[in-house]
């Protein structure tokens, strides 16, 4: 009986030991499983965090890049705004200058047009007058056969033609000027006239210039006939 109880006890102990062993080993396996699962989930978490960190680093990088860009842009914008303001001011100045110049030019053009007309009219009038005067002088010269010329030294030269019947074109001339005493002074007669000195005295006395010339011509004519 004790041996039976011992054998039973032994069997119980063995059963208990086997059950214990397997329970422990199950638990142990479970624990190992849990530990491994835990390790895996930690690893996954870690990986997710790493990705997140990289993302966030990237975002910070981008943010800084944008900040740089914005800063550069702001500088450029300020610079270009300044340039634009300056340019607008220059344009305004130029427009004003343009206005002034245009008005100036217009005024000058009008002034010159008027001047041109005035000059043209005066010229025309002068031309006509000179023409008439020339015509008059020509008539006298042709018909009287007497040319009166102003020559150097404030002298007048009198040239008679139509004196010599054989050579009417032959000139008979003398010069005349007013000396310092404001008296008539004859000179350079060609051909030489003796009585010219006498005529000079007469005309100084009487101031009858008309008679003076008539007598000179008469004297020249007389010379030819001799």
């Amino acid at each position: 009986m004790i041996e039976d109880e011992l054998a039973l006890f032994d069997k119980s102990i063995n059963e208990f030991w086997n059950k214990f062993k397997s329970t422990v080993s199950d638990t142990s396996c479970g624990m190992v499983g849990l530990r491994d699962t835990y390790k895996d989930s930690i690893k996954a978490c870690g990986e997710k965090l790493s990705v997140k960190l990289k993302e966030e680093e990237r975002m910070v990088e981008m943010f800084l890049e944008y900040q740089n860009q914005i800063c550069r842009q702001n500088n450029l914008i300020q610079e270009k705004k300044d340039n634009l303001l300056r340019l607008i001011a220059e344009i305004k100045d130029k427009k004003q200058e343009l206005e002034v110049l245009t008005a100036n030019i217009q005024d000058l053009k009008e002034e010159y047009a008027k001047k041109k007309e005035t000059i043209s009219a005066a010229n025309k009038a002068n031309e006509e007058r000179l023409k008439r005067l020339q015509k008059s002088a020509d008539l006298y010269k042709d018909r009287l056969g007497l040319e009166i010329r102003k020559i150097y030294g404030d002298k007048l030269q009198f040239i008679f033609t139509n004196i010599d019947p054989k050579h009417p074109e032959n000139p008979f001339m003398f010069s005349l000027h007013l000396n310092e005493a404001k008296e008539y002074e004859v000179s350079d007669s060609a051909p030489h006239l003796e009585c010219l000195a006498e005529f000079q005295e007469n005309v100084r006395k009487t101031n009858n210039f008309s008679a003076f010339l008539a007598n000179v011509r008469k004297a020249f004519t007389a010379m030819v006939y001799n």
Partner: protein
Amino acid sequence: MGRSTVASHRGQAEVLAMEEEVAQSLLDAKERAHQGGVELQQLKAELRKAGEEDTRLKASLLQLTRELEELKEIEASLERQEREVDEDTTVTIPSAVYVAQLYHRISKIEWDYESEPGMVKGIHHGPSVAQPIHLDSTQLSKKFISDYLWSLVDTDW
């Protein structure tokens, strides 16, 4: 186990909120950069336009300046012409007048300028009488005419 789950959920929410904030800042920055770019483009376009207008104005000013130069030349020319007219008025004409008057004084003859060509017509103003002159130059020699006209002039001093 329950406490740490709650804590981890709250942590997650905080992180999400922060992430949202950062993402929003990033989007804002991107938007600002984009707008800055747009503003920059507009400024460039305005500058270009203004630059073109400035160039046009410069060209106009140049042209007007040249016109002004030309006008200066015209002014010089006009001044020259004025001087010429002046000379005519103050020298040439008086000189011609003097000669014509001298002829008149010498001969006392006044011509008829309306007479037919070839006819010598006029009046001699003698000391007492005025004598008409009427000669046909086509029939008479030049010497005859000259001699005749001078015969009218008094030789008495």
